[in-house]
């Protein structure tokens, strides 16, 4: 039928194709990773090939937040607030070691140990900073993720689920740290096996 110029598709495929092909990132960078993000949009790497060249200056028009760089504790409430102001459907890429865990500044007094402590992150990119290719790879992974989403059923995405909340708690500046230090509904400390340690021995 396609020879006669008739294309068949499902509503879900069309819907997902439309969303994944016009992801507009928020025009927003925090540190040196933002330079790589800017490079990704420029002619050499050209993120426009994936429909993501339109960086929006307003969170109201953006679909994708690329957390590009170190999130300081002083900046964290503003980042969460920007995320809350983005309309659904919205996605988050945590770009670089700092955004995913605090990176080289993890033990510092002023750096948040990963933005996933305050809102859910879809794609993590390691690197310090990640190369533009890594950002493109993350972007394509996100597109695959969107392509696989079901419009109905229990696994439907958050924006099709009226019960799922799309705004998250904005932390406040406390006397010693942000309060709360993490949003426990979003982030729970994973139980990790640190090799050769006391917990390891006692577990045996």
């Amino acid at each position, binding site marked *: 039928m396609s020879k006669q110029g008739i294309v068949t598709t499902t509503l879900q495929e069309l819907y997902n194709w439309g969303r994944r092909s016009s992801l507009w990132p928020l025009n927003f960078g925090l540190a040196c990773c933002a330079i790589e993000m800017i490079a990704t949009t420029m002619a050499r790497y050209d993120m426009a090939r994936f429909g993501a060249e339109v960086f929006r200056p307003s969170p109201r028009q953006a679909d994708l937040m690329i957390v590009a760089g170190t999130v300081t504790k*002083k900046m964290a409430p503003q980042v969460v607030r920007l995320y809350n102001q983005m309309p659904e459907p919205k996605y988050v890429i945590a770009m670089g070691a700092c955004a995913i865990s605090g990176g080289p500044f993890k033990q510092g*007094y*002023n750096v948040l*140990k990963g933005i996933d402590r305050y809102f859910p992150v879809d794609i993590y990119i390691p690197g310090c900073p990640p190369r533009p290719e890594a950002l493109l790879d993350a972007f394509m992974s996100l597109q695959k993720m969107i392509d696989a989403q079901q419009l109905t059923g229990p696994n439907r995405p958050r924006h099709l689920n009226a019960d799922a909340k799309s705004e998250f708690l904005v932390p406040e500046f406390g*006397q010693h740290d942000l309060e709360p230090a*993490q949003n426990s509904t979003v982030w729970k*400390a994973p*139980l990790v096996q*640190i090799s050769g340690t*006391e917990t390891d021995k006692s577990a045996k």
Partner: protein
Amino acid sequence: MNLENIKSEIEANVPGCQLEFVLNPSPSAQHSLRLDHAHAIAVATYLRDAADLRFDFCSNVTGIDWPAKELTEKVKVKKLVDGEEKEVEEVRKTTIPGTLEVVYHLFSVEKKHGPITLRMSTKDRESDVHMPSLTPVWRSAEFQEREIFDLFGVVFDGHPDLRRLLMWPDFIDHPMRRDYVAPDDFEYEPTAHDDVLQRANQHQSEAIAKLTSEAEGK
């Protein structure tokens, strides 16, 4: 550009100032001058304006925290023991009180010389943390003095806009002080070592204990 000469020149021109020559015994031999609070502005203004010095550029201001430390030294003392005079070793303890110190580096763009180093100390690091600000003399010190106020807790009298620079206004600690205790957020440390490893283990064992008690409760 001999610091001793500069010192005597300042002393001749700023009456009453008490300068202390701080010797640096290392090969770099970067000696410095410690200013007294009362004449700090006058000395700084002289360094900036004197025709042969013209230190017009304050390139760097930084803070140092010196916690109080106890020195123990063994001293041989002659004492009467059982009617005989003997040499006895005694351990003497002296406490050096803690202080907060601020260091200024000065250059002259006009004369193309420098740097010279100025120091100032607070009376102690808890109750009296005041110090005159040199921002009225060198405008470039403004943000750096704010940073020192933020991270070390030195209060600069005469600073035009003394607010925290890096941390938020409600924050009460001074993170660059030696006795600063960081928030205990070591829940997840995948590449921990040393002190961090200990804390991470503590958090992990607490989490495991909580999980097991919950499982037993069910």
